[in-house]
């Protein structure tokens, strides 16, 4: 940046505090951040295009691989969308099972974030403890779906595996332990001086900016915006299950973490309610759903990071004509510069981690051309 009074520091694309490839071009004046330009495109895999070449059934697995952490949520959204296009009914038991897995995924995703937060602010013990407790949730996922992370559990029309009463007992036992641990973490987040000093008051995002830039998920809720797809739009069994939408008004990094802590309690309650009220019946259609009639539909679900949207056009046959995916991190990361204004350079990781960025899932709709700067602007515009 010759001729400018600012210094530009590249953060990333290798390990910009997080273990995912994204480049932040940070303009600083002394220690103060003046502007942050997120630059993406290091992890583009062309999944939307691949979906058009593969059958509806194969795309289920592709959708699950958009994001490793929220794979069940992606497959749920994809399947809901297919079901809306094809007017396919889902048995109630399958809906409940989807809800259970979705919530377990939210729990382990939030816990992973707490662990990363601990690592980034130099609180390694928190990292170790949270990872240990997250393990019991992953074990539950393995118990239900057969795999710890990449569950491949949801299929159009239902789910792939059923729950037995013994497994339900195991789930309840593990959830009791997890709840006690979350209570402990809540105390840590509320009282620990390192966490409070590093997080409170940094990365302020006020309500107007949430609406102006379209932030979603826990980030919007931490600024007092009550937005949660689980109660705005009906999917899985959320319309039968009582739960609260957590909001806070502090608008800073710390409140974004606290919203997630409180959401964990809600998620544990949802899973417990769902296993207690699990309806009897089939868990899916007898035959695989291979073809979908012509039509188009949109489906929204609440991923751990916010609203996830799938839009599918089918022209009949066994392949989709178009699959459009919009992930929550797309909005949250490309518009993050508003939070960094006037922050300290050392606070960058603490603000970034409070956004819970998931780079692999936002890397699809990227039109990066040679003169990156001008294109970036339009990409940020797209995210609004």
């Amino acid at each position, binding site marked *: 940046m010759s001729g400018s009074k600012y210094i530009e520091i590249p953060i990333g694309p290798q390990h910009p505090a997080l273990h995912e490839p994204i480049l932040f071009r940070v303009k600083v004046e002394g220690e103060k951040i003046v502007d942050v330009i997120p630059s993406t495109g290091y992890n583009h895999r062309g999944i939307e295009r691949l979906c058009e070449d*593969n*059958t509806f*059934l*194969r795309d*289920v*697995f*592709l959708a699950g*691989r958009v994001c490793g952490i929220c794979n069940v949520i992606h497959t749920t959204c994809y399947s809901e969308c297919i079901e809306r296009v094809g007017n396919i009914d889902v048995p109630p038991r399958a809906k409940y099972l989807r809800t259970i897995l979705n919530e377990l995924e939210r729990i382990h995703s939030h816990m992973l974030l707490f662990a990363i937060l601990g690592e980034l602010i130099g609180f390694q013990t928190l990292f170790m403890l949270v990872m240990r407790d997250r393990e019991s949730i992953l074990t539950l996922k393995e118990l239900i779906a*057969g*795999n710890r992370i*990449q569950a*491949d559990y949801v299929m159009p029309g239902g789910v*792939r595996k059923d729950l037995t009463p013994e497994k339900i007992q195991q789930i309840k036992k593990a959830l009791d332990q997890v709840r006690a641990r979350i209570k402990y973490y809540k105390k840590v987040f509320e009282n620990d001086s390192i966490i409070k000093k590093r997080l409170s008051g940094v990365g302020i995002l006020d309500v107007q900016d949430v609406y102006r830039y379209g932030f979603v998920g826990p980030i919007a809720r931490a600024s007092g915006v009550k937005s949660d797809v689980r109660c705005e739009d009906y999917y899985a069994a959320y319309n039968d299950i009582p739960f609260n939408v957590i909001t806070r008004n502090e608008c800073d990094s710390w409140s974004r973490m606290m919203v997630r802590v409180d959401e964990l309690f809600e998620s544990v309650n949802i899973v417990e309610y769902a296993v207690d009220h699990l309806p009897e019946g089939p868990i899916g259609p007898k035959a*695989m759903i291979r073809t979908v009639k012509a039509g188009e539909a949109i489906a929204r679900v609440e991923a751990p990071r916010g609203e996830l949207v799938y839009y599918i056009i089918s022209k009949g046959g066994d392949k989709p004509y178009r699959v459009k995916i919009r992930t929550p991190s797309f909005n949250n990361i490309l518009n993050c510069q508003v939070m960094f204004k006037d922050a300290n350079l050392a606070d960058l990781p603490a603000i970034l981690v409070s956004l819970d960025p998931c780079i692999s899932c936002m890397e699809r709709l990227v039109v990066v051309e040679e003169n990156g700067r001008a294109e970036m602007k339009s990409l940020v515009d797209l995210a609004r």
Partner: protein
Amino acid sequence: MQVVDIAKCISCRLCAFDCPAYAIEMTLNPAAEKYKYYPVVDFGKCVFCYQCVRVCPTQAYVTSNMYNLASFAREKIIKDVLKKDIES
């Protein structure tokens, strides 16, 4: 890993058709009497989604506890699997 019991296979190709990773190839077995094609799984491509296990109409696929694929070098994987198979 999943293992195929070729004696049960009826050469319906459903597994090869549904495999999202294109890992299954139907191979000709001229010696077979009735069902002349059997599936061969390329574990280098397989993503372990178990869709093949799910769709097979005759339950020819069996899930197993084998994990020999975990190795540092590709050559070593193949050797390890072969050696173990020969020993057992």
